[in-house]
């Protein structure tokens, strides 16, 4: 059965009869013949394909990578592309006008994506700081300009009183769209989601798709059935009380950020480097964990925070400490047909000091070489509790219980730091790859113990702090 995908593009309601696993970029360029949006990498890392997306239940547009966004995911949504922005006024969007005047483009190929990212920023933040602008641009690479004129244009555009983005169209999202060869299911309640998983065991369960959709974007892999978690109401909730923060399985990183900022500022700082705004607009916490990648940055922080999961499947629900979730390289404890319903993070307790450090070749939008997370409870000068976890150091994200043991019950001094560092080195046998040598990983993982001690003592420890 064909169920046309209904959405609006640049304010115009549309209906597309196409494969649900077609990328939005492909559809824009080849079906809508809107070729302002470019393919630079087809892996969500360069930003040339950036467009603005407002899902059926959202108030504001957010930037997304159209190269790894599937048509099934835009059912009921509104899309705005660079062409829509150009049509939004006599001189286009303010960002376009300022960039054209300010020498902000040279070859121009990255420009439509940058325009979209900045227009998206100004939608939610009319008075951005320089850091906000960098956050917005973290997912957009420019190889020509050196960025200065782009950042300046963003400031200029923010000062002007800009109009809104195109609206109209979109609306309710149907629960099944696409064509027979490729269908996308978007259930709205958990039982339906679980039952669909049973009905289509080979279907791809997709949250944001920022990693899982790469083979589709890239190698033209084909999916006959895709099941989205996005619209399941139980998975969209964030509940907080004095004990815990419960994050639903379809909550995105961008949605979680304000909560992290409030309770764990160090986590928030790291998450602002997690992918890019585009990636965080789609990517979910649950997806990052379910992916069971050794280099997912959510895991070490959540392991150190003592998070647990509620899993839901045909047999009902069960709780599992995150510690027991990662089995092996890209293998988790999720049973067939099971999904992550929520992630439960205990609230910070008195004397708890939480720090997470991401080490990568580039500050923004890079994959961690090493990610180290420390949750230390320090009463007086004694460490009474410690949870230390790393990513990038083993086949799974993992705690170093030996390092924790080296600190618990002791004060932080040269001696205990040295023994914790040794423990870190002996816990992990990392590998050589394109991000670094094993030797570097071991050295840095150990040195992060020095860093956390200095950091807690109030020293300036990161180059970005200057």
């Amino acid at each position, binding site marked *: 059965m064909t169920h046309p995908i209904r959405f609006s593009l640049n304010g115009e309601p549309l209906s597309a009869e196409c494969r649900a696993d077609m990328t939005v970029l492909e559809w824009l360029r080849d079906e809508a013949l*809107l*070729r*302002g949006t*470019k*393919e*630079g*990498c*087809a*892996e969500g*890392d*360069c930003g040339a394909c950036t467009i603005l997306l407002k899902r059926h239940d959202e108030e504001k547009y957010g930037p997304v990578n159209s190269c790894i966004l599937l048509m099934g995911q835009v059912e009921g949504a509104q899309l705005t592309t*660079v062409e829509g922005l*150009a049509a939004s006024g006599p001189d*286009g969007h303010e960002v*376009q006008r300022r*960039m*054209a005047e300010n*020498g*902000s*483009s*040279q*070859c*121009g*190929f990255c420009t*439509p994506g940058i*325009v979209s990212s900045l227009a998206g920023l100004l939608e939610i933040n009319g008075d951005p700081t*320089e850091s906000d*602008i960098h956050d917005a*641009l973290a997912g*957009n*690479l*420019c*190889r*020509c*300009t*050196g960025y*200065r*004129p*782009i*950042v300046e244009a963003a400031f200029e555009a923010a000062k002007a009183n800009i109009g809104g983005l195109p609206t109209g169209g979109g609306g309710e999202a149907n629960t099944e769209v696409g064509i027979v060869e490729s269908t996308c299911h978007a259930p709205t309640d958990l039982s339906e989601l679980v039952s669909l998983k049973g009905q289509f065991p080979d279907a791809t369960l997709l949250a944001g798709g920022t990693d899982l959709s790469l083979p589709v974007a*890239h190698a*033209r892999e084909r999916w006959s059935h895709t099941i989205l978690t996005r619209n399941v109401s139980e998975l969209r909730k964030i509940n907080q009380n004095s004990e815990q923060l419960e994050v639903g399985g379809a909550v995105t990183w961008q949605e979680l950020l304000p909560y992290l900022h409030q309770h764990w500022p160090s986590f928030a700082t790291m998450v602002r480097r997690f992918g890019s705004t585009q990636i965080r607009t789609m990517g979910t916490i649950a997806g990052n964990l379910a992916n069971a990648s050794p280099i997912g940055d959510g895991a070490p922080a959540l392991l150190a925070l003592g998070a647990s999961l509620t899993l839901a499947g045909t047999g009902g629900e069960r709780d599992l400490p995150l510690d027991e979730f990662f089995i092996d390289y890209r293998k988790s404890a999720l049973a067939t047909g099971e999904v992550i319903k929520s992630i439960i993070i205990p609230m910070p307790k008195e004397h708890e000091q939480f720090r997470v450090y991401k*080490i990568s*070749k*580039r*500050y*923004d939008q890079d994959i961690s070489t090493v990610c180290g997370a420390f949750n230390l409870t320090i009463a007086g000068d004694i460490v009474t509790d410690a949870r230390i976890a790393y990513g990038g150091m083993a086949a799974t994200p993992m705690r170093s219980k030996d390092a924790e043991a080296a600190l618990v019950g002791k004060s932080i001094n040269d001696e205990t730091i040295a023994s914790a560092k040794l423990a870190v080195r002996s816990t992990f046998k990392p590998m050589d790859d*394109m991000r*670094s040598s094993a030797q*570097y990983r071991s*050295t*840095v993982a150990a*040195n*992060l113990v*020095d*860093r956390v001690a200095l950091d807690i003592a109030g*020293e*300036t420890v990161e*180059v970005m702090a*200057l």
Partner: protein
Amino acid sequence: MTLHPDHEELSIKRTVVGKGSAHDSARRHVRGEAIYTDDMPDLPGTLHIAPILSPIAHGDLLSIDLTAVKESTGVADVLVASDIPGKNEAAPILSNEPVFAETKLEHIGQIIGAVVATSLAEAFQAAQKVKLDIRELEPILDVETAFAKGQRALADQHLTDGDASKAIASARHKLTGRLEMGGQDHFYLEGMVAYALPGEENDMQVWSSTQHPSEVQLHVALVLGIKNHDVDVQVRRMGGAFGGKESQATIIAAIAALAAQRTGRPCRFRLRRDDDMAATGKRHGYVMNYEMGLEKNGRFTGLKVEALANAGHVADLSGPVVTRTLTHLDNCYHIPNADFLGFAAKTNTVSNTAFRGFGGPQGILLTEALIDIAARELDLDPNEVRAVNYYGPQTGEVTPYAQPVKGNRIQDVVDRVLEKSDWKKRRAEIEAFNASNKVLKKGLAMMPVKFGISFNLTALNQAGSLVHVYQDGSVHLNHGGTEMGQGLYTKVAQVVADTFGIGLEEVKITATTTGKVPNTSATAASSGSDLNGAAAFNAAIQIRKRMAKFAAGHLNVDEDELTFSNGQVTANGKSIPFGELAKKCWFGRISLSATGYYATPEIHWDSATLKGNPFYYFTYGAAVAEVVIDTLTGENRCLRADIVQDCGKPLNPTIDLGQVEGAFVQGMGWLTCEELWWDKSGRLRTVGPSTYKIPGSRDVPPHFDVEILEDKPNHVETIFRSKAVGEPPLMLAISVWLALRDAVSSLSNGKLAANLDAPATPERVLFAVEDMKQRAVDIK
């Protein structure tokens, strides 16, 4: 032909030239209306191409089984070497550099064949079904192994001046060592792409994202077995190139054209990012071995260098790249006795190619490292060592390759950058910071750049143009230069607008095409505006003179008194609008079209002896960079950069500023976060932006101050006395790498030089820190 004699007068009266006009396509860029090759509408029946790539680094290709590929859905054709009707040749200079591998596989990602299908998805899916019968051989993956085995991609180059061995042997101080520097992917945002449209009989039109349409034309004709006149190559703009589309775009275009020839249908070939990064060349990585002799004050007595370049699997442009390395090892310093050996290693990695700076950055990087090493060994300030070695009357004013250094502005840029960066004060502040910070350490460095402008190969220093004036006074401009974002089209249009005294909007910039201007050189070597600006001027001035002669008769004035400005042609209070004059000229049967030609004067080069006068002039710049490193992790960051760049009298200061900033950030990427990493099998594992990290907006120094050296017309007669700007500022980023070395050296109170190669990734910085801590203990 040099610049027309009327040039000097016009270059003084500038109206449009010298203004910071926006890039001609700026409005189209921001609105998504600029059309790149892959954005061109698909003609009916268009086919799409996916490549078949070598899975191994070295081996014999015994046979290719295409059965399953051909049976795959949507496949229209499959191309391999034996399907080439002409020559399987892609070499830009030498020969035996195949488009499709034949019996030898020489790197992972080498193109073996191409699948042509009705959709890109089908082409990719089919390409995966190829069965290759291969006998694997041991690959050579690094330059030092290749050097030891004598595996070279082309003949060695040896530049000598005086007797370096003797000078070093008798020097008071003698230092030897090795420096390794990585290559760099261009990471143009628009990947390689071509769209070939077959015409009647042998005609082939090719839209190609290329810096070198004439070479694409030549190779398409060669591969297809047709004549050059059958092929028309066009390019309106590229989405970045940086040298990457100078020679190797020919391969992509030739494959698209071959598919079009065989199927009779339009064929589009766009490389996916990872295939682009695996199958096409990059900046050459080098290992440099050096021996230097020094006097007590840091003055060089002699320098011997073995520059071992990774050419990759074939020569491509490695010959001239190595030449430019050897001719830039001197940078701004007079070296009395030089012995520079250039070795281009043949390895089983993708053939490296042109990249902004073209070998120059590697030469200058070594020399600047040597200054740093020498200064710390002799307990001198690196800038004092620089000062005693600058070219000048006290030291010497002839390069090791025998070219006199004329129009020397080294001291101008150095003095200015030290002043504007507040060097002395900040040097003291940084020392105070380092004394009070446990883990973060700052570094500061200054360095100058002298860069030779012109292609080393004299023949390439020529250009052509075609200018038409229509009856409404609007102008059609075409030249052999290509637009890759550098603003060349805008600059050349400014020259033409001033020549006719009309507004920039009256000049239509048109796509570069081999049918309008033939036999062009690549838009490369920073020479685009020098060559094409001059050629366009030489065309426009001919038409202007014809129009002036006619106008003189029409207005009854003396021809010499006529001025062309503000869209009016005026003398003695009488005037006629330019458009009206054009119409009258047509009526009076005056030709309003001209071709222009320009060949750079005064240059010559002997490639056998590596001596001559290869560069028409030098351009100069200087930078001061301040960095901070984390001694626990090696993470690092440039906090401030001050730059002074000599642009002569700029044609367009806004565009030049953009070139300086962009080049600096790109150079910073080369020397810090951009790392090419191959696994043991020879597979490049950094083949996309998720693994290959170019600088992002936050990596730009928060304090970034670029100044164009005030009002300094070029001392030689370039177009409107401007200077080239594309490449030189990239090398100013070496200041960042030197500042990182300085930060590491701070752990020995500046007494020891860091053991730091390039790129200075967090890993290299951390290990340099650990090494420094060890050695600092030893000296205490």
